């Protein structure tokens, strides 16, 4: 089991500096953050294939934008998750656009997401957890992802989202309560 709180690699800054000219130097950083980015994407979009796509897109963007990262402005993980957040938000906008053109929003009642059983997950606990997270609002889901996949502090999340630190805690608490209720009594609260 891995400590998911913010932990930088011991030589992270040096690796990132090297990676600006030699992408191969990024391999260790990639290994360190891959699961967090994938989990972040998974919490946001639930679907495993979409999460793979987004994870790929995040790392491609990170590598092309790496030269813009300034260590003095904050930890790499916060910058990385800001890129991930922008990438996922852009994809969610595209999804809404696709729904717009196909008018799925009108054909199907809102909130009528695919049955949780459709979630391709072999692990029952994870399947139930993702089904519970799917029932959250977009904002709650985003904060759960930043907190439990990104391991970011409430302060970092507040800065990234424009919320106050207290508001972040309130939203997270509410979201955790809803997840807990859903895990205890599936379907009762959706």
């Amino acid at each position, binding site marked *: 089991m891995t400590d*998911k709180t913010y932990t930088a690699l011991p030589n992270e800054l040096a690796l990132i500096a090297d990676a600006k000219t030699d992408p191969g130097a990024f391999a260790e950083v*990639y290994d360190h953050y891959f699961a967090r980015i*994938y989990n972040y994407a998974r919490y946001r979009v639930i679907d495993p294939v979409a999460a793979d796509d987004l994870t790929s897109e995040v790392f491609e963007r990170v590598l092309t934008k790496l030269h813009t990262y300034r260590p003095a402005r904050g930890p790499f993980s916060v910058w990385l998750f800001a890129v991930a957040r922008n990438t996922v938000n852009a994809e969610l906008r595209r999804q809404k656009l696709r729904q717009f053109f196909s008018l799925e929003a009108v054909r199907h009642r809102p909130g009528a997401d695919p049955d949780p059983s459709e979630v391709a997950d072999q692990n029952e606990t994870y399947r139930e957890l993702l089904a519970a997270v799917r029932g959250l609002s977009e*904002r709650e889901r985003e904060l759960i992802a930043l907190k439990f996949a990104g391991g970011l502090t409430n302060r970092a999340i507040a800065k990234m989202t424009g919320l106050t630190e207290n508001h972040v805690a309130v939203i997270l608490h509410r979201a*955790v309560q809803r997840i807990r209720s859903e*895990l205890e009594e599936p379907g009762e609260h959706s």
Partner: protein
Amino acid sequence: MKHDSYEKFSRDMDAALAHDHLADAAGRSESERAELETLRTLAAADFSPESRIRRSLKRRLLEPSRTGTASVQRARVVKSRTVPYRLAVAAALIIVLALAASPLGTSLARSLVGILESRQVGENTTAVSVDGDFQAVPGENGETILLPAPDTGAIPGSGLPESIDEADKERHLTLDPTIPFDEAREMVEFDLRIPAYVPEGYRFLGVVVIRTGQASLEFVNFDESRLIGLLQTTVGGANGKIQITYTSDIVAVDTKVAGHPALWTQAGDEGLLTWEADGVNYQLVGVSDLETALRIAESLP
């Protein structure tokens, strides 16, 4: 819940993430213990073993023989009729993004990528910079669009390079296709209009141009969780109207927008307002009530 309780909750979250057993269940109420258990479940969750791209993506992005991604050079347009090229890119991107959602669309999406990869788009000649796994072609505003590049550096007529791993073949483009209003206005063949009013908390995001006779204006709310879209389509020709499948859940209301007959359809809190004026069909989505929809629609100049 008091401020102290939120602080305690935040400490419990961080302890759960650190797998710190200081946040144990001793001395807590049943409700608090259940909450702690939920935090631990969230903290322990790791879906990443289900990822199918972990190794292939690393190989593609980081292996020495494929190190093009981080050093892609900005492409220069040698000779270009800019607007048609931009239009082709914008239209193709929209279609690729839409097609990518369906298995059937994959091959068509590849063909479009092939079109984008080719040096000649009609009379438009575009410089293509090839570097490693990607080639860069210029998009609107001078930014670079990355496309999978062939290993040989030659530009194929269509399809993707075979060297890309199977799991990564479905991905092609990463460009958000919205463009500024003034630019979109120059690209379409009709009078694109922007409403003077949108609900509080929304901002104009940009325009998606589908073709010269069809464009969508997007407005997004401050946390980017909701989108309002206003699709404008010239009436007739190849720009067919969207068919609505009516079910018993849908409420339909006849109304008017600035004197023009309009139809409001609603399912739950999602609505669609559609009307025609001056040879253009308008479809407004993302608004949950007719009053707001009419206010937006009637604020068009």
